[in-house]
């Protein structure tokens, strides 16, 4: 749960949305600032904050907060 809150915080910082408005369904479809450039920023920020290396496939698959959470859980194992 703590990791999820941290993830929400990163998404909120990078995509300029209120942390309370972020949930598992948050995605480029419902967050205005989530464009391709912000997506890269988000991936970079996640790598640093969680100290993980993500693969190109991870980067392309991270299409919602739920998917990010799943991929992150895998990498953090």
């Amino acid at each position, binding site marked *: 749960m703590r990791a999820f809150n941290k993830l929400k915080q990163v998404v909120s*910082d990078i995509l*300029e949305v209120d942390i309370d408005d972020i949930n598992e369904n948050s995605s480029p479809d419902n967050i205005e600032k989530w464009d*391709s*450039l912000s997506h890269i*920023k988000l991936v970079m*920020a996640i790598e*640093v904050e969680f100290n993980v290396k993500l693969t190109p496939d991870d980067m392309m698959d991270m299409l919602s907060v739920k998917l990010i959470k799943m991929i992150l859980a895998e990498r953090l194992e």
Partner: protein
Amino acid sequence: MIEFFKDRVIETPANYAKTLLEISPVKSQLSPINIAFLSSYTSEILNQYISVELAKKGYFSNNYFAPFNQFEQEVLNQGSDLYNKNPDVVIVHNMIEDMYPDLVVNFAKYNKTELESITQQITERHKTILKSLRERTKADIVVVNFSAINIDDVGSVYSVIKQQKNQYIQDINQKLLSLCNKLSSCYSIDYMDMVYKVGVQEWVDRKLYLMARIPFTGQGQIEFGKILAETIYSIKNQPYKCLVLDLDNTLWGGVIGEDGMSGIQISEYYPGNVFKHFQRTVLNLRNQGVLLAIASKNNLNDAMEVFQEHSDCLLKESDFAAMEINWDDKATNIQKIAKKLNIGLDSIVFFDDNPVERQWVSDKLPQVKVIDVPEDVMLYGKTLYDSNYFNFLTMTEEDKSKTEMIQQNQQRAELSENSKDIDSFLTSLNMVVSIGTSDSMTVDRIAQLTNKTNQFNLTTKRYSTAEINKFIELGDIVLHLSVEDCYGEHGISGVAIVKKSGECDWIIDTFLLSCRIIGKKIESVFLNEIIDIIKSKKASKLYGQYIGSKKNHLTKDFYKKHDFDLSDKENGIWEYDLQKISEAIDFIKIKRI
């Protein structure tokens, strides 16, 4: 740094993003600055780092990132977004691998003729880009130079091709640098130097580069933002003038008064070599024009013995522009140094290993920059550089010999004490004043003087090289003055800008002398020359302006003393009756050059 940044941790990309959002409300505490970025990659990714790092330096930046690879389109078209954004600084970062992908990864494919042709193309292209920028905007230009990073071959074993490639890129960078030096207010920064700091493996991320054409990692972007902010700050602000140093445990190990000549640590071997190494760093600053001074609690004779007799002590008495070695407190001594060198306390940096002394000076003289000296002596030099107080982006010959000039001045001051009558003293100096109009050789020095002269400066108007060039283009008169006397040359140390205002009227917009030549009636000679020049232009009126500042009190009555009449009190405008004949000063020879 503003209160906002106190105790705030800004280390990760997310920290930067968050900080960027939170800066806006405190923007009134920062000076606005417009940055335009031209690059061969998606430089927008740098936005938060540039903005946050500039905010730390006191600027609120408005960043414009041109679409990537649109150099010519943005630069050659006067109506482009770049110019519409009215930039204060334009950053140009064209990566060589974006122009010639083979060059970095497949260098072996090229023969000599092809390489020469590429060099030619790159330099010509940048000549056009930079010259067009220079002609169309007053902005300072910062060019990031080229690098040959191929993450795959870094650290691989000896390869002739790799060395040839590195050499080739260095040669192009050399050409780029000399191109920048020829243009005014155009500076080059070294990309590889940033990469070295972070390390190549940390700087490049294959995924970012191959998926998004972004040439650096988050850590690289943070570093890049820091360097750009430091560079912009250094362009917009003059470096500090004087470094005041302590002696014991700063310039040598141990205490000379207790340990004696043979006991102090300064030698070719550890631990003495650590101090010797630091002395080299200090000398490097001195040789770039930083005035060195000493504030030390010691017996003068003990300290002087080290400078005169110790063969490993690289710093000599003559390297210091001022020495206060006594038992007075250091704040008092620093004030004495400032007075002696005729500089403000706000242009002094203090370096002392003793935290108590540092605290004392900070408390008593808040204008002085006190360096937070680490306990580890091996880090002294790095700390000095990291302070960024002495970044010289331009270097003139005058800067390099500043200490000698100050010392000659002190000899003159001693002569003055012995001399009874001021005019006979001045006569004995055998002064020759040379006055010339600005040209490409002198314009940088002229701009530099307008930016750093405070005391004898009638209007304290600060101009960039580009602005000065504009004046010349418009037909204004830009004069520089240099002085030679029996002790040596002063180099260019006076500037006057006389602007045309209306048909036949002229106004002295800028009139300044460097403080080391004031009090010798040189100012009167300079003004007389201006009057002569103006008369020869068939002028009907000559005005002079005085704008008071915190520091130029000395010049308050300058125009009054020289027979000008106050014509507009509110704007400090004085008028000179061109029919008058000014008082001749016969002990100064004048050369028009």
